[in-house]
């Protein structure tokens, strides 16, 4: 298995073990990473799992879907690499991935 790193807005990194098939939101909440709430349980309904994929990784993860766009684009912190962590599935290809957390979830 590998790891995925969530970097809090203040720069604090949290390395969590990659579990194939889990969403990034599930990995973060199972490890108590602060700054990802996941209030709707992964239904792309709440928008509280906004992450910004590190530039080096965006081609591997792919950019956001239309539904994700509608959810994150109203956030003042939305950027081209913004995604919903609940819509990103962990797989061995993402070993070493880094994602950044916004200052606020909406």
């Amino acid at each position, binding site marked *: 298995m590998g790891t995925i790193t969530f970097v809090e807005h203040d720069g604090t990194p949290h390395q969590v073990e990659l579990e194939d098939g889990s969403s990034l939101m599930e990995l973060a*909440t*199972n490890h*108590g990473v602060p700054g990802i709430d996941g209030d*709707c349980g992964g239904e792309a*309904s709440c*928008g509280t799992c906004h992450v910004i994929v590190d530039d080096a990784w965006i081609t591997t993860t792919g950019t956001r879907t239309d539904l994700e766009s*509608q*959810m994150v684009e109203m*956030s003042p912190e939305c950027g081209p690499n913004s995604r919903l962590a609940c819509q990103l599935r962990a797989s061995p290809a993402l070993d070493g991935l880094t994602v950044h957390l916004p200052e606020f979830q909406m």
Partner: protein
Amino acid sequence: MGRDRVIVVGAGHASAQLCVSLRQGGWEGEIVLLGDEPSLPYQRPPLSKTFLHGTTTLTDLLIRGPEFYEKEDVTFRHARVTGIDRKAGTVALDDGDALSYDRLVLCTGARPRSLAVPGAELAGVHALRDAADIEAIRGTLRTARRAVIVGAGYIGLEAAASLRKLGIEVAVLEVADRVLQRVTAPEVSAFYDRVHREEGVDLRTGVGVAGFEGDRHVRAVRLTDGTEIPADLVVVGVGVLPNVELARDAGLAVENGILVDEHGRTDDPAIFAAGDCANHYDVRYATRMRLECVANALEHAKAIAGAICGKENPISALPWFWSDQYDLKLQIAGLSTGHDEVLLRGNPADGRSFACFYLADGRLIAADCVNRPKEFMFSKRAITQELAPDRELLADPDTPLISLLQTPARSAP
């Protein structure tokens, strides 16, 4: 000296969040989670949505996996709390044990209201609140042909949609004269009425249930006008009652929920209450309220963790809710109570996508958004910022919403 102990009663949405927020807030003492359901806290909303017709298991629904509780040193025990002794600072368990607490948090949720009519105890008549209810309903789905849902609130309508997906004939009975009457504007009710009929639901409003017919298993639902509707499966979704008995018996103040302040604290400084069972003082709305939604349970838990860890964080977040039926993703921001105007973006009389904005004195206070995630996220922000957006632009589907976020906040008249 032993470590201080927080005891959490009830293992649901509020308590799962409380465990996280307590540790994040720096609580180093013990956390003991006592639940009368056998499982660790799981997501309740999917029960009437994907879980009812799908193949997901309860493990898939856990809010956090077992490794989380292990890592955060949270002890889960499957037990029902039967009483609180405030003088001794202990709770009594149904297995005869007693545990002492330094802080006690009641997260006991709510239970389904039952229908006091003849036949309500027949086999085949189900409530829809927990995993056991769903397992029981799922067990009947292979043979069920005709289902009757009593109550056209969100849970009843979600159950109707899930059962239609399985090809089961569904009738929905509602005593009010429109669906979702308690929670939405007439325009939104009319929309859901139309969609359910389009999906083949036999929807009847303004009808009362007189009783359930059958010998051991339900065979039909009898209405107050004498009509009988054949049914081999009945789901009753007519609202819930907050579980306040523990608090009331311990002498704590109870009035439509356990009364707590903006930090989730009861009139006993060592005891808190969160989620569906709690009636809190809300800082944003400057009034008391009891809500039944996940967002509210999470906000309560965060406030209580703040109070316990000495980092005050009073209850003030904007409430929001969601509901999935067929291909409809409904997202609701804010509370529409007190609105004096309704504005539509898109047409609910046609198609399956629109937003219904609720305004009070020109300010946006709530929004029901059907297949409109952008409108929902816009509303969350606009309501929080107390914006009074231009009415015409708000209703104009060609005006980008983001441009309306720049409207300066209007000061109160």
